[in-house]
């Protein structure tokens, strides 16, 4: 195993562990733990959604500018980026702190997520674009 593949394997292993822990955190058995951290959850969504949304949008911008016919290829990243930003916007307190989630960004998050999934299914070969841009 080469050093690069070894590093890649370890990073993917870490990511998978994080993913499994995240899923476990969402199960009913983790409800007591989630209850204690409940006030912080919207903040977590806002931070992570903003980071990932900006990253997807930057990726889309780079793809759109640098690739041949890139704006079509950038649609996938653009959709996921807007969906992530909408997801973050759902929990941004507008006027009332701790109020119910906002429904308009929620609809936006769902619509853009579905567009992203459709793009993913339509052009699976482009699904690696985030990786390519991140490796650049």
């Amino acid at each position, binding site marked *: 195993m080469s050093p690069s593949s070894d590093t*890649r394997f370890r*990073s*993917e292993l870490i*990511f*998978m562990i*994080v*993913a499994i822990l*995240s*899923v476990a*955190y*969402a*199960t*009913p*058995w983790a409800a007591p733990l*989630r*209850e204690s951290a*409940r006030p912080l*959850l*919207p903040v*977590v*969504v806002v931070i*992570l*959604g903003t*980071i*990932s949304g900006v*990253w*997807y949008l930057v990726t889309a911008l780079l793809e759109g500018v640098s690739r041949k016919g890139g704006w079509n290829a950038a649609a996938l990243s653009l959709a*996921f980026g807007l*969906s*992530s930003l909408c*997801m*973050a916007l*759902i*929990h941004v307190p507008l006027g009332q702190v701790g109020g*119910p*989630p906002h*429904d308009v960004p*929620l*609809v936006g*998050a*769902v619509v853009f*997520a*579905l567009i*992203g*999934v459709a793009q*993913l299914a339509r052009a*699976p070969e482009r*699904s*690696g674009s*985030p*990786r390519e841009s*991140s490796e650049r």
Partner: protein
Amino acid sequence: MLHRMAIAAMAAGTLVVGACADRDGGTALSTEPQGGSSAVQYVTKGSVAIFNRKTHRLEPVTGLAGGRSGASASIVGAGGSGPTVFVSTGAPGLAKTGGRGFYTFVDDNGHKHGIVLLYRGAGGPPAALQNYTDGVLVSTTSYIWQKTTAGWARTQSVMQVVNKGALVGTFTTTSPVRPGTGSGPIDVVRLERAPSVSPIQRVVGAAMYGLAYAFAPQDATAQGLSLYRCRYEWLRFSSAAVVLFAAGSAMAGAPVLTAFMMTTFIGAITNAAIAEDALLDCLLNYSQLAFSSFSASGAGAPTDKWDCFAGSYSAHCTTAFTL
């Protein structure tokens, strides 16, 4: 889920009969059936309506010949017996020790209903059931169970309809276990058969059930009952699930996982967790189940009194229901 279904069925039966009872109230009556050959008796001084299974309507009943003095209606079952209720061993709703169980829900008109189940020290099916509406006792029902090898068969139930502390109606159902049938149910209420499935189907089914149990909000019955009131929470939860699905798809479709993709995925999961909590909160606001006293009752507890198990609605049996 089955636990709640059993309680809900019992409560629904109580409410249906209770809905047929008097609406005016009055002084106490001594109209409890004194035994007799008939199996189903209903005596009240109020108005009576019976649910017609064919027309699905409540039809008023006038007094019948032979009615007791002071009663506006006296219905006596013409032959036959009431439906046999059979609870199999290990069925939901059974207790291992004495105590009380609480079940609350809110109806479409905003009235809060409370069901209190009283269990004898030996456990088993509930010995008595108290039905409260907006904190006021409206009926009590006592049950007599006969143990069989397969479970318990209800041989008698006596439901007393109460209005402002006064008895206004009594509904008695007698279902004797016929000779030679004591080893099993007479009329099977709930029959569970072992499914004939292949090992692959069993494994796949178990996996799907495990996933549904782990990730779906619990208790489909409560969800169904509260679907309308929690429709916004349902929509938000569904939307969060769609976003989570998209994030998972993006992660699965990418050849290499990146930190930002993980960020998206964790954010989507957190978002779904928030929506799930909100949905569960909403469901619990409309349906609460609390079996908190399945232990030996302390001295002076209402369930220490034998008459409480017999369906008494006196003060020491009807501790203020404040859940």
